[in-house]
C-alpha cells in the first residue's frame, strides 16, 4: 500500500511518462480512498493547463492562434 508521499511522486511522474500497470493500479486504489491525493491530482492537472496557457500567451479569444496547445512542435 503506497503512502500519500509516494503517490504525489507518482502523480508527478505520470505527467512525464506513461505509468506501468502496477503503478496505475496502485494510484487508482489509493485515489479511491484518499481525498487529499485526489485533490492534489486535480491541482497538478490545473498547473499544467495554466503553464500551457502561460507559454502560449494568455488565453485570448480574439486571437486563438496564440493559445496554448498550438505551441506544441
Amino acid at each position, binding site marked *: 500500500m503506497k503512502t500519500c508521499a509516494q503517490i504525489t511522486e507518482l502523480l508527478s511522474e505520470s505527467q512525464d511518462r506513461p505509468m506501468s500497470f502496477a503503478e496505475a493500479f496502485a494510484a487508482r486504489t489509493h485515489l479511491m480512498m484518499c481525498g487529499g491525493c485526489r485533490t492534489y491530482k486535480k491541482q497538478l492537472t490545473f498547473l499544467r*493547463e*495554466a503553464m500551457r496557457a502561460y507559454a502560449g500567451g494568455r488565453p485570448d479569444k480574439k486571437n486563438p492562434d496564440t493559445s496554448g496547445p498550438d505551441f506544441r512542435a
Partner: protein
Amino acid sequence: MVDLTDDTFLQDLRRQMLRFATVQLSDSHLAEDVVQEALVGALKGTQAFRGQAALKTWVFAILKNKIADALRQKHRAGEARALLHEDGESEDFSDAFRPNGHWQPVSRPAAWSHPQEALDQTQFWRVFELCLDQLPVKQGRAFMMREFIEMSTEEICLEMDVSLTNLNVLLHRARMRLRECLNIKWFQVGMSR
C-alpha cells in the same frame, strides 16, 4: 503568414523569451542579449510561417541553442558554480506528511474554488509569475524546460546533465512548491476575497 508588424504579438513573444532565458541563465543581462540575438536571427530568415504558433516554435528553438551556447561559455569561464547555489533545492516537503507517509492535516490539499476563472484574471497571472520566480534555480530550470517549451525528460537530462531519477525529484518538488505557492498566495486569499 505572420504579420511581423503586429507589435503586441512580438512584445508578448519577447517577454516570454526573456522569462525563459532568465530562468535558464540566472542572469538577466545575459538573457537580454541572448533573446536579442535569437530574435534577430529568427526574423532575418525569409521563411514564411503558417501562423504565430509556428513562428514561436521556431524562435524558441533558436533561443534554446543560444542559451546552450551561453551556458557552455559560462562553464568555460568557471562561472558554473554560480548556477549551482542551492537555496531551497533540498527542501523535500517531508514535513507535509506524517511519519507514516500520509498528509499532515494542515498540508492536505483542499479543493480550489473556480480555478478556471483564475485563468482569465490578470492578477492571477501576476501571482503565477511570482510563484515561478520563487522556485529554486535548478527546479525552475527543469520545470520551465518541461512545461514551458515541452522538452522531453531525455532532452532535459542531457541539457542539465542529471539522471532521470534526479530530474523526477526536481520536477516533483517544483510542482509541489508551485502548487503550495498558488494555494497560499491566490486560492486561500480568494476565500476571503
